[in-house]
């Protein structure tokens, strides 16, 4: 398998009039990687994709594909293929004509095209569907046809713009694994745009978390989940409980925060922010719902939080407890369902316990909207 062709964005700025859609993006995507841009809608991730595919010229900075500057090269000359959000299958062409459109452009004979279409249809597990119109296929089938059409052009980089957003949950989960498999098989670079952190985490080698045109963090999924750089990354990826406060004391990689509502708590400073925080800074501490455990009553300390249970719900794999801490602070706790019996705590006060390595401290910043 070839190493694939890498994509680099260097100091990329994209402006629409006064509006800055992308602000100074610097990304190195390794060849053969599955790379995701993750962010809420309107954060500029699709804009980046259009700049890579050539539909947009960057206002400043460079897009490099395989080390080659792409400025002035149109979308039809770039070694990229884009899978559109709405798929953009040609409605008047049959499936096989759709798939081999790129071959038609390069002047291949109908026989050749048909043969290649059949190969690709086999690959996407839609044999004998070539003579249908796209409108006669189901959503998931159309999805796969769009992938086959893009792959038929033999691009070095495949760009996917939220291609799964129109599918229902089951199909979406199925297509995640399928996409990942196809990517491993063809070995080319995939750049994937999504607002669904589940998709990004399950499929990607690396993820860039974007907020309002700015890339907050680029790392693999585990790092982004466990060691976020910013308050936004921490709150956007997965569920998180936030504790606001001021840093009271710094002890190496750990810090003691006097929180606004929950007393003094200890937390680990996130890797990217180590050495950058000082005593007295505003900071945010994030603890995942599943990182809490119920402690014995009456204990207290710098890794215990007391709260009153508001209500509880059983979700199947987890048992969620929604509590209200001192001063109305809401804390969500998820206990894994391991067959133990869950007592009803509603209305009671409970003490929650966490391990310091699971409490991440980042500078105070903007949170993701709920």
């Amino acid at each position, binding site marked *: 398998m070839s190493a694939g062709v890498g994509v680099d964005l260097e100091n990329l700025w994209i402006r629409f009039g006064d509006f800055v859609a992308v602000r100074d993006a610097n990304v190195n995507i390794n060849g053969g990687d599955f790379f995701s841009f993750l962010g809420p809608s309107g954060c500029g991730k699709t804009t980046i994709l259009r700049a890579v595919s050539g539909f947009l010229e960057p206002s400043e900075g460079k897009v490099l594909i395989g080390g080659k500057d792409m400025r002035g090269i*149109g*979308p039809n000359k770039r070694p990229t*293929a884009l899978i*559109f959000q709405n798929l*953009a299958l040609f409605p008047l062409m049959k499936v096989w004509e759709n798939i081999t459109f*790129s071959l038609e*452009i390069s002047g291949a004979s109908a026989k050749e095209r048909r043969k290649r279409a059949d190969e690709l249809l086999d690959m996407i597990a839609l044999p004998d569907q070539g003579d249908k119109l796209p409108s006669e296929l189901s959503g998931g089938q159309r999805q796969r046809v769009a992938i086959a059409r893009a792959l038929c*052009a033999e691009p070095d980089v495949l760009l996917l713009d939220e291609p799964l957003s129109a599918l229902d949950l089951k199909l979406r989960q199925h297509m995640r694994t399928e996409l990942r498999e196809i990517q491993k098989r063809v070995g080319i670079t995939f750049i994937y745009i999504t607002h669904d952190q589940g998709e990004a985490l399950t499929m990607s080698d690396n993820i860039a978390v974007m907020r309002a045109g700015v890339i907050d963090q680029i790392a693999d999924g585990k790092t982004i989940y466990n060691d976020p750089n910013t308050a936004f990354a921490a709150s956007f990826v997965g569920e998180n409980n936030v504790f606001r406060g001021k840093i009271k004391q710094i002890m190496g990689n750990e810090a003691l925060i006097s929180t606004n509502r929950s007393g003094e708590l200890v937390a680990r400073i996130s890797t990217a922010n180590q050495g950058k925080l000082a005593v007295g800074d505003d900071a945010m501490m994030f603890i995942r719902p599943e990182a809490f455990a119920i402690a014995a009553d009456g204990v207290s300390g710098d890794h215990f939080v007391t709260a009153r249970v508001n209500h509880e719900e059983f979700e199947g794999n987890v048992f969620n407890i929604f509590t209200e801490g001192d001063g109305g602070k809401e804390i969500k706790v998820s206990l894994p369902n391991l067959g133990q019996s869950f007592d009803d705590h509603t209305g009671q006060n409970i003490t929650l316990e966490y391990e310091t390595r699971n409490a991440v401290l980042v500078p105070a910043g903007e949170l993701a909207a709920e």
Partner: protein
Amino acid sequence: MNNSFLRVSIWVYLVIFFLYLLGPLVIMSVTAFNSSAFPRMTPWECLTFQWFGELFQDQRILNGIKNSLIIGAGTVILSVAMGLAGALMLTQIWPKLRATYYTIIIAPILIPGVVLGISTLVFWDRINRMLGLGADSFLSNGIFLTVIGQSTFIASYCMLVLVARLQRYDVALTEAALDLGATHAQAFRKILLPFMRPAIASAAVLAFLASFENYNTTTFTFGEYPTLTIELAQKVRYGITPAISALAFIIVALTVFFALLNEAKLKRQELVAAARKSATVEELAGKIKLPSFFAGNMAAVLLVVFAVATITVVGTATAYNPGQCIANVKEQKRVEAEQRIQELRKQREEQRKKREAEEVEQGGAQQSTPKPSNNSGFGNVFAPNTLGGDAEEESSDTETPPSNNGGFGGVFDPNSLQTDQ
């Protein structure tokens, strides 16, 4: 009670409405088959197809049709091309300018055709002169001017049709084609044009019909190439024959034919699409077994009926000879005319006799009454008695009218003058 009244009134309304719409067409079509020399339905004389024959022997009409077809084809090509360009521009243009652009491009529809005709003529004449070309140059050619003149506003109609379809076009399709390596020209030809095809066909039909029926713009620009409408208008000035009804009938028949053909095709496509989804066409159509093309397709059945009717009519027309009937009618007319002449003669004879009798009576009475009765509007002014001695001079002028039907009544009757002598 109330409901049934409503239903009846709806039916009455529909009947009146369709009478209003189709009545004139039906009457005109019927007159094409009457042998009467003036297009009329009553009195019905003979069923004849002679007007069709006459139509096809009329060189001016045929030439007009030929010119109309040439100009129609030119207008279709120019208008659809301009309309498509205009429609594409509308989707590409900077949004703030869109409303202004739309108004400008729609304006020709609102401008009277006469104005467009004159301005086309003036404008191209100017250009022709600026280029120093003569009166026989291409730029002053009637066909060229008419195509250009008609297209100025027909292109706007085309644009309206095309814009409606273009608004449903997903620009991502063009982008997808570009992304897959197509040039802009290829994306246009392979993706956008096929998508626009139904609208282009509609626009072309619309453009052709608008061009074919246009009079007020063409009337200024046709030069040496009069179109059918121009020829018809000129003919009407000198009185019309049922040959024009025959032409109207042909046009109506063609329109109906193509409308049915189109309808049948659409319906068929619909059925096929439905069939691909679930059952076969036969199942959908119901119990009556018909050849697959007709199944559940009323329009197709009508189409065939219509075609058969046409063939029958044409067949009868070639075999049918109305000569005998026309001869009969002629004979009848001749007899009628003769009768009327006879009657007229009789009447005159009677009148003459009556007058003679009166004169005789008058002659007898004149001895006793010197003043003759005078029914003239001039009263007794010219009465011989009033004029007295002048009467003799008058008599030489008025010798000519021998009968007593002049406006002057009996004043100049030689008899009445004689009485004085």
